[in-house]
């Protein structure tokens, strides 16, 4: 609804549009600096080994090589959640782990130098599956993590940070239930978000203690604090945000890469750029966690969930980047989607010798949803419940409460999403297509269609603080000081629109300072769809504050009451004499008006995405084709229609719906080697395979900020995979036993069960 607004809700060109279409956006690998060196990482061919010796002599002798560093050459800097992992270690824990780093004058020389480093390893036995890692006799990855189980809890979220979900009386709950179902289900195909641009950083060390890092991440300001935690105080750290060529959550953190570049710069006295190759991105940078649940759920026939208990295993690979946080948010999101008074759900995070899992949009909740939904479906099937009605009834309603990531209880004060869900169901034709559990909606020869639905939402739309300044110059322009980079959501344009709306200034008179931690106040950066509410609120408040100061100064000069004044187009006027206008300059003279805005963390609002999926399965070939997707949500107020649509269309890629259909990381379980770490073998959707996607968006104002909006980008991928697996199972009349629904899995399911029904996967 753009009606009330000049810019908000209208389709306007992205502020970076002409740079994008002319190829002049400067991504990290496009940056040239005087004296810039190129860094490369020597990576371990072994999944688990001790580095006995590193012989660098030959590499150092190569002309153009400026530095070669191994673990003994670098400080004991450690990152990861509970600071487990060294920047370069004498123990390697996955195929691809960093062994040594090189800086050279050209990329080619840096690559050649890697071949000249001789490493002696003592090979250790590795663990490659959840079950092997938890075996009592299993090889241990870290001394700090006995049994390969990561220390639970998120230190930064306080002592009560959510580690499990225990509330009410589950035994009583199960007694109340009409049906009880129990099952084990996993989402263990660890898809890769695979942004097109590989992660990268430029590090610059200046004596005696100045560190500057340019990063391609979606959030750069917080790295300043994160790096300080790793390297200790006593350093002057500056981070510079560079446009991010796709992230989907994954480029939220890259401390190891950044510090490799910094260490090489310290050793050479020159800036060093380190950009991963595609193979390194896929095989050695973070991907989704793997998740498996063994739970029991009790339902009443009216769809009330009476109890949910069990264990949630999350496999995080060789270390935890933020997995404890993902588990905490996942547990919170479970409560948003399932209103239930009695929980007893216990997670454990497990390390194995593969590359690490880390942040990806869906952030733990998607993995939980993918594992839990098939088991919930068994219970729904037993109770004869329609999943759409079930999810609609159980999604959080105003007045409902939940424990969020810090362990505190919050009461939801947003809108009821039932209306949006009804609209989506209508658009999809759910009532006509749903034929009951494990029944196809349509059969034509060997082709069988099936439908599925799931829902997901997140209260992280208000996570963490944000701050901004808005500066009004007398020439009638506004400048935003915000540490917000562009990573594809169009959020930089959206904050320009918000400021333009508050000040009634043309869009081209509002700009944002270059993104640099030394010129902007605190900004956590995008994540959890927080850009619209959290960053937006800070920027709006700063613009309002600046406007207020401008009118106060003008009132003083004009001998008027500020309440009687207004401004638009860089002019000030009396509300009752709008035709008599003077410029800001004439009104306030040589004065800049600086407004400050701050957003305080708030977990009482949550977004919501319900996704309906229809697939067609060829029972002869086992091939599953995605036919139609309908996403439905309520965002309060659309800020930018095409931007929102793009984010919602993103439900397919970046480890979304396609991770239920064909995307998977294939690990050789005897060596820990990844077999599809390139874009030929790792499958992705092309232009020629597009399903029909419809996005239904309601605009019921939220009590968020003056435009009543909330963000949804992060959750767009999350409900789809579980809905797609449900759809494929319904099409073939048999439960598929895992993700993705490859032809092999489909044919196995069809061949292994007698015609007809009976639950397969989740039992």
């Amino acid at each position: 609804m753009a009606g009330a607004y000049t810019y908000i809700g209208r389709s306007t060109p992205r502020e970076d549009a002409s740079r994008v279409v002319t190829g002049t956006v400067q991504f990290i690998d496009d940056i040239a600096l005087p004296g810039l060196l190129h860094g490369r990482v020597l990576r371990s061919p072994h999944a688990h080994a001790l580095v006995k010796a590193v012989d660098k002599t030959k590499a150092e002798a190569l002309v153009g090589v400026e530095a070669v560093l191994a673990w003994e050459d670098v400080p004991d800097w450690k990152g990861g959640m509970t600071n487990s992992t060294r920047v370069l270690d004498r123990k390697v824990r996955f195929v691809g782990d960093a062994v040594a780093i090189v800086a050279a004058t050209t990329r080619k020389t840096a690559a050649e130098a890697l071949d000249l480093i001789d490493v002696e390893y003592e090979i250790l036995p590795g663990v490659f599956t959840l079950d092997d890692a938890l075996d009592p006799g299993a090889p241990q990855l870290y001394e700090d993590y006995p049994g390969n189980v990561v220390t639970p809890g998120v230190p930064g979220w306080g002592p009560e940070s959510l580690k499990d979900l225990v509330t009410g009386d589950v035994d009583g709950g199960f007694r109340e239930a009409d049906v009880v179902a129990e099952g084990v289900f996993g989402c263990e195909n660890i898809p890769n978000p695979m942004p097109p641009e590989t992660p990268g950083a430029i590090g610059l060390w200046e004596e005696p203690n100045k560190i500057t890092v340019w990063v391609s991440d979606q959030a750069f300001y917080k790295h300043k604090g994160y790096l300080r935690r790793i390297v200790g105080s006593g350093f002057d750290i500056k981070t510079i945000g560079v446009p991010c060529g796709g992230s989907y959550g994954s480029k939220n953190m890259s401390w190891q890469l950044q510090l490799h570049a910094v260490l090489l710069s310290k050793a050479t006295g020159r800036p060093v750029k380190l950009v991963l190759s595609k193979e390194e991105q896929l095989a050695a940078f973070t991907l989704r966690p793997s998740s498996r649940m063994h739970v029991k759920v009790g339902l009443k026939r009216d769809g009330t969930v009476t109890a949910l208990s069990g264990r949630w295993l999350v496999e995080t690979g060789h270390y935890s980047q933020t997995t404890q946080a993902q588990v905490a948010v996942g547990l919170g999101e479970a409560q948003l989607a399932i209103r239930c008074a009695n929980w007893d759900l216990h997670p454990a995070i497990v390390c194995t010798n593969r590359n690490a899992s880390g942040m990806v949009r869906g952030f733990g909740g998607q993995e939980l949803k993918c594992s839990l939904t098939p088991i919930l479906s068994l219970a729904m099937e037993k109770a004869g419940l329609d999943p759409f009605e079930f999810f609609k009834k159980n999604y959080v309603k105003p007045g409902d409460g939940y424990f969020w990531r810090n362990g505190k209880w919050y009461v939801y004060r947003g809108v009821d999403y039932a209306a949006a869900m009804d609209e989506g169901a209508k658009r999809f034709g759910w009532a006509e297509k749903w034929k009951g559990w494990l029944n196809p909606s349509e059969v034509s020869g060997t082709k069988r269609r099936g439908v599925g639905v799931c829902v997901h939402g997140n209260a992280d739309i208000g996570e963490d603080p944000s701050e901004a300044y808005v500066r009004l110059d007398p020439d009638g322009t506004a400048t935003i000081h915000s540490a917000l980079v562009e990573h594809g959501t169009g959020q930089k344009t959206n904050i320009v629109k918000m400021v333009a709306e508050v000040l009634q200034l043309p869009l081209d008179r509002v700009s944002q300072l270059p993104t640099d931690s030394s010129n902007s106040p605190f900004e956590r950066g995008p994540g959890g769809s927080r850009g619209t509410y959290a960053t937006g609120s800070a920027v709006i408040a700063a613009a309002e504050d600046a406007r207020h100061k401008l009118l106060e100064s003008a009132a003083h000069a004009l001998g008027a009451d500020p309440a009687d004044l207004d401004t638009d187009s860089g002019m000030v006027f009396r509300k009752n004499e709008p035709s008599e206008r003077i410029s800001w300059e004439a009104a306030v003279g040589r004065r800049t008006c600086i407004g400050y805005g701050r957003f305080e963390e708030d977990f009482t609002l949550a977004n919501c995405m319900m996704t309906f999926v229809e697939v067609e399965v060829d029972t002869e070939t086992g091939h599953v084709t995605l036919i139609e997707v309908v996403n439905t949500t309520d965002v309060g107020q659309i800020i930018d229609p095409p931007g929102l649509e793009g984010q919602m269309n993103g439900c397919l890629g970046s480890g979304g719906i396609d991770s239920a259909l064909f995307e998977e990381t294939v690990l050789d379980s005897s060596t820990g080697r990844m077999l599809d770490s390139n874009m030929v073998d790792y499958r992705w959707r092309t232009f020629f395979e597009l399903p029909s996607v419809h996005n239904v968006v309601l605009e019921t104002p939220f009590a968020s900020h003056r435009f009543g909006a909330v963000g949804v980008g992060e959750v767009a991928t999350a409900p789809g995979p579980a809905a797609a697996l449900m759809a494929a199972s319904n099409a073939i009349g048999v439960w598929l036993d895992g993700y993705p629904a490859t032809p092999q899995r489909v044919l196995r399911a069809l061949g292994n069960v007698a015609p007809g029904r009976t639950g397969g996967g989740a039992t």
Partner: protein
Amino acid sequence: MEHADRIRLTVNGKVHDIEIGDRDDQVGPLETLAATLRERLRLTGTKVACDDGACGCCTVHLDGMAILSCMTLTVECDGKDVTTIEGLSDPKTGALDPLQQAFIDHTAFQCGYCTPGIIMSAKALLAENPRPTEEEVKEGLSGNFCRCISHYHVVKAVMSVVPPGGG
């Protein structure tokens, strides 16, 4: 190794006389066109994502045909004419190509990393087939990766520059 010591490459109308050899300031026999464009000529609008011929991000025009510059050796381009995304706007007026403008008007990108390659592929497709159907556009772009899923907006943008009565 037998090869000319120098090659002439025209890029966006400008002739470059390039020395071949193994020194850092010379183009080596295995250097890709993508690397030459990006690292030597500083035309960084051409993006490299996979460096493996799979994603189309590095698409440029070689004598008018769309090619993958990460799979093309510079030494093989002697006497050829290369157009990159930087060369698409009008050299005199600087005005954007109508297709570039269509991408702006339809917000046919999210992160924008795939966009130069997609625009170059679409431009070549339109040169070959000025009135493609929507299906032909999708087929023509099926070698271009877009992880943000801007495909739907891209197809609309491309179709918007097809003269009416197309297909």
